C-alpha cells in the first residue's frame, strides 16, 4: 500500500497526470465552451498548485525550479483571455496535454524524457498538418523540421556517443529555434489556432533550452564553433525577416528566431549555465506569448488583417494601448523588464570572451527596436479608423496581459539567484562563480 501511495505521489507522475486527467472530463463539456474554458483554467491552476506542493521534491532540474512554474502560468494566462467560443476548444485541451508533456519532459530523465519529447514533436506537427494554416512550402518545412527532430531523437536511442549528443542537439535546435532548423518554431506560431501559439512560444524553447543546457558542455569544439556561426546567421536572418513582415504573427515568430539565436550564441560561446540565460529565455518567451495574446485580442475584433490595415488604436482602446506599449517596451529590450536584465546579465558574464560577434549581436538587438516599434506604432498611433467599431480589452484579456507584464517586470528586478541551478553537479561549469557586476 505504501508503495502504491509513493508511486502516485511521485512528482513526475502527479505533474504529468493532472493536466491529462483534466483534459479527459473536458470532453464531457465539449458542447459548452464557457464551462469548458472555466474547467481548463481550473486544471491549469491545479497543476500550478500541485507544482508548488511537489517542487521541494523535484531534483535534477538544470534551469532552476522557478523556471518550471512559468509553464502552468503561461498556460493559464494564454487561456484566460480567450473568448469562450467553439473554435477554441481543441486548442484549450491541447494546451492541457502539452502542459502535462512539457512538465514531464522538464523533470524526467533519460528514456521517459525522450518518449515524452517524441509525443510533443509528433503532436505539434500533427496539429500543424491538421489545421493547414501555413502556405505550402512553409507547411512542409515545419513538418519536415519536426520530422527531422523525431528522426534525430530516434537515432539518439541507437547511436553511440558523441553521435547521440549531436542527434539530441539537433532535436533541441528544432525546439529552441536555431537557423536553419527554425521552421518548426515558426510553423507552430504561425500555423496553429487559438491560444496554442502563445503557449508554445514558451513551451518549445523551454524544452529545447533545458536539453541544450545538459548537452552543450560536452560538445566537441568543432560543433560548438558551428553553433556559434549558425547562431550569428540566425540572429541576422531572423532580424531581416522580422523587418520584412506585415503579418504580426510572422513578425513575432522571426523575432523569436533572432532573440533565441542570441541565446544560442551565448550558450555556445560560454558553454556554461547562468541564471541570466534563464531569465533571458523566460522573458523572451513570455514577451512573445504576451504579444501574441495582444494580437489575438485585435484579431478577435478585426480579423486576421495585415499590420497596415489597423491604426490609431491608442485612441479607442487605451487599456490595450498601455499594455501593448509595455510589452513592446519589454520586447525592445528596454528596462526594467526581464529581456533587458537577462541580456545585460549575459553580456556581463565574466566568462564571455570578447569578439567581433558582439557586433552582430548588438545589431540584432538594435533591429528589434526597429520592428517592434514599427509594430507598436502601426497599431496604436496614426489615423484613427472611425469606420470600425472599437471595443477595449475585456476583463479577462486585460487581466492576462497585465499579469504577463507584471511577470516580465518581476523577471527584470528579481535577484538572479532565484534562477540558479539546483544541480551544480550536472557537468557544466557555473559561470556565476565570480561576482556578476564586480569581477
Amino acid at each position, binding site marked *: 500500500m505504501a508503495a502504491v501511495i509513493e508511486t502516485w505521489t511521485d512528482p513526475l507522475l502527479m505533474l504529468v497526470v493532472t493536466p491529462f486527467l483534466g483534459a479527459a472530463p473536458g470532453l464531457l463539456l465539449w458542447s459548452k465552451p464557457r464551462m469548458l474554458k472555466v474547467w481548463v483554467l481550473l486544471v491549469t491552476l491545479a497543476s500550478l498548485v500541485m507544482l508548488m506542493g511537489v517542487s521541494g521534491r523535484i531534483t535534477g532540474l538544470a534551469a532552476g525550479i522557478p523556471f518550471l512554474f512559468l509553464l502552468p502560468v503561461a498556460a493559464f494566462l494564454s487561456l484566460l483571455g480567450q473568448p469562450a467560443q467553439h473554435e477554441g476548444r481543441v486548442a484549450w485541451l491541447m494546451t492541457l496535454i502539452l502542459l502535462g508533456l512539457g512538465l514531464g519532459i522538464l523533470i524526467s530523465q533519460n528514456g521517459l524524457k525522450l518518449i515524452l519529447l517524441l509525443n510533443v514533436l509528433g503532436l505539434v506537427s500533427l496539429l500543424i498538418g491538421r489545421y493547414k494554416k501555413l*502556405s505550402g*512550402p*512553409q507547411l512542409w*518545412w515545419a513538418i519536415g523540421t519536426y520530422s527531422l527532430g523525431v528522426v534525430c531523437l530516434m537515432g539518439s536511442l541507437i547511436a553511440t556517443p558523441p553521435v547521440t549528443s549531436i542527434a539530441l542537439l539537433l532535436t533541441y535546435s528544432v525546439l529552441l529555434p536555431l537557423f*536553419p532548423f*527554425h*521552421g518548426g518554431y*515558426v*510553423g507552430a506560431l504561425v500555423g496553429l489556432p487559438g491560444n496554442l501559439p502563445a503557449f508554445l512560444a514558451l513551451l518549445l524553447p523551454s524544452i529545447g533550452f533545458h536539453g541544450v543546457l545538459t548537452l552543450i558542455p560536452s560538445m566537441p569544439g568543432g560543433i560548438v564553433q558551428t553553433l556559434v556561426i549558425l547562431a550569428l546567421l540566425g540572429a541576422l*536572418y531572423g532580424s*531581416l*525577416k522580422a*523587418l*520584412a*513582415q506585415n503579418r504580426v504573427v510572422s513578425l513575432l515568430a522571426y523575432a523569436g528566431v533572432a532573440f533565441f539565436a542570441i541565446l544560442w550564441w551565448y550558450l555556445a560561446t560560454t558553454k556554461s549555465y547562468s541564471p*541570466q540565460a534563464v*531569465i533571458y529565455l523566460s522573458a523572451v518567451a513570455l514577451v512573445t506569448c504576451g504579444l501574441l495574446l495582444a494580437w489575438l485580442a485585435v484579431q478577435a475584433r478585426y480579423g486576421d488583417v495585415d499590420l497596415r490595415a489597423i491604426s*490609431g488604436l*491608442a*485612441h479607442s482602446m487605451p487599456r490595450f494601448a498601455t499594455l501593448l506599449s509595455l510589452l513592446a*517596451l519589454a520586447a*525592445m529590450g*528596454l*528596462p*526594467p523588464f*526581464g529581456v*533587458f*536584465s537577462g541580456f*545585460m546579465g549575459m*553580456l*556581463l558574464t*565574466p566568462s*564571455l570572451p*570578447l569578439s567581433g560577434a*558582439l*557586433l552582430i549581436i*548588438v545589431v540584432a*538587438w*538594435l533591429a528589434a*527596436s*526597429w520592428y517592434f*516599434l514599427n509594430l507598436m*506604432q502601426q497599431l496604436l*498611433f*496614426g*489615423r*484613427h479608423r472611425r469606420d470600425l467599431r472599437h471595443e477595449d480589452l475585456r476583463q479577462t484579456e486585460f487581466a492576462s496581459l497585465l499579469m504577463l507584464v507584471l511577470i516580465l517586470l518581476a*523577471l*527584470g*528586478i*528579481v*535577484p*538572479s*539567484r532565484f534562477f540558479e541551478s539546483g544541480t551544480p553537479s550536472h557537468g557544466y561549469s557555473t559561470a*556565476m562563480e565570480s*561576482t*556578476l*557586476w*564586480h*569581477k
Partner: protein
Amino acid sequence: MSSYVILVPLLPLLAAIVIGVAGCRLRERSAKAGVLPIITAFLGAVVTLVLVSSQGPISVRFYEPGSVANLALPMGFYIDRLSAVMMVLITVVSTIIYIYSVGYMYQDRGHSRFLALLAFTTFVLLCMVSSANLVMLFVFWQLLSWLLYLLAHNHTRPATLDGAFKTFTLLRVGDVAFLAGIVLAHALYGTIEFQELFARAAATPVILSLGPGSGLEISGVTAVTLLIFIGAMSKSAQFPIHIWLPKSLYAPTPVHALLHAGIINAGGFLLNRLAPLYGLSPTTLHVVFVIGALTAFLGACMMLTQNDIKKTLGYSTIGQMGYMIMECGLGAFALAVFHLIAHGLFKATVFLNCGHVIHAARQEPKFPYKDQAAARGEFSRLTWLTGFIATLVLPLIILLAAHGVLRIPLRDSQGAVIFLFFSWVTSSQAILTLTRLRAVAFWKVAVAMLLTLLLVILTYLLAAESFTYFLYPAPDEVASYFQAAALPAWLFDFLVVATTLLIILGWFLIYARAHVQTIRIPGWVEALRARLYVLFINRLYVDMVYLKLGQGLMRVAHRLDKRDVGWLP
C-alpha cells in the same frame, strides 16, 4: 540622514503615480497635487547640494557589489558635487515647466497623462545623474530614449509619426553603442563601479587588436570611451545623429523647454561623469573636439537658414550642444557643465516664451513687423566705437595683462587660453548682437555692451576658478584633462588665429553694412554662398542619407523574404 537624499528622485515619481492613477478622476486637483512633490524635490536637491559640498559624496547602494545575490538591476545612488548640481538644475527647470504646463495644457485631452509623463521624466533624469554605476546610468539613459519618443512627438498627427520613429531609432543607435561600451569596459576592467573603473583603467593599460593579423591596435580605454561617446552624441544631438531634434517640432511647448534645457544635456553630463576615463584617452578627446566643433559650426549655419521660430531655436540648441561637447573635447569639463546650466536656463525661458509668441502671432492678423526700414540710415559712432573697444581692444589688453602682469603662461597652457578665448567669443557674439539695437538711445547700447563684456568676463572667471574648483577640487586632475586634450601646438594656434580672423571679418562686414557701404564680393563667393544656403536649408541632406539607408535595408529584407520562400521558412 544622507540616505534621505534618495527622496529627491522619488518625489517626482510619486507625483507621476498620483497624477497617472488619479488624473482622470481628479483632473485639476491631481495636477496641482503634483506641484508640491516637485517643489519639494527641488528644495531637497538644494539641501543635497549643500550637504555634498560640505560633507563629500553620498553613496546609497541597494546591492552588494561583491555578491552574486544582487538585484538583476544594480540600483544605487552616488551623489557627488556634479550630481548635486545637475539635480538642482533638473528640479528647478522641471518645477518651472510643470507649473507652466498646469495652465498651458489645461484644455488638452491628455492633460493628466502629459503631466504624469513630465514628472516621470524628472524622476528618470534625477536617477540618471545620481546613478551609482554604469549599468544603472544606462538603465535610465534608455528610459530617457523612450520618454523622448513619447513626449517629443504628437502621435495623433500621422505626419509626425515618421519623426518619432526616426528619433527613437537614432537614440537606440546611441544606446546600443553605449551598451557595447559598458560590455567592453566590464570585460577589460571587470567592474561597473565608477571609481573602481577609473582606478583600474588608469592602473592597467590594455591594447586591443582590431583584427587578427591586421596590425591595427587601439587602446582599451579609447575603445570604451569612443563607444560611450556615440551614446552621448545621440542624446546631445551631435552631427551626424542630430536629425531627431528638429523633427520634434509638434510637441507641446513645455516639452521643448524640458528637452532643450534638460534632456539634451545628458551627453554633456555623461562625459563629465566619466571625465577620469576620458582623461586617459587623448585620441577620444580629440574626436570629441572635432565632432563638437563640427556640430557647433553646422548647427549655427543651419540655424541661420531657418524661417520657423522653433526650428531656429532647435538648431541653435544643436550648435550650443556642439560647443558643450567641444569644451569636453578640450578638457574643459567644468566649463561644459557651466555651459549646459547657463544654456538650460536660458533655453527653457526662451522656449516657454516662444509658446506665447506663437500663440499671439496666430491671433494677430497683421503681417510680421519689419524693422529694416526704420533702421536704415541710423548710424552711431558711439555704438561702434564701444563695440570695437569691447570686443577687440579690451580683450587684447586683458590677454597681455594676463600674460605679462599676472604671469599666466599662456603659451604653455591651452586650458587658460581656452577659457580666455571662450569668454572673448561669447562676449563678441553678445556685443555683435547688440549692434542691431537701434530703437534705443545709443549711449544705452554702448553701456549695455560694456556691461555685457564685464558680465561675460566675470562669469567666465567664476566658471574657470570657483566652479571648476567646486566640481573638480584637485587642480592636478583639471590640469591632467587639459594636458590629455592638448592639441598639437600648430593646430591650436591655427584654430585661435582662424577664429580671431573670423570675428574681425564679422565686425568688418557688419560695420560696412551698417554704414550702407557696398562691399565688392567676387562672383564665385556669391555663387558659393547661394549653394551653401541651399545645402544648409536642406540640412546637408543628412535626412535623405538616412532615408536611403533605411530604404536600402528594407529592400534587402524584402528581397530576402521573397526569395527564400521555398527553400527556407
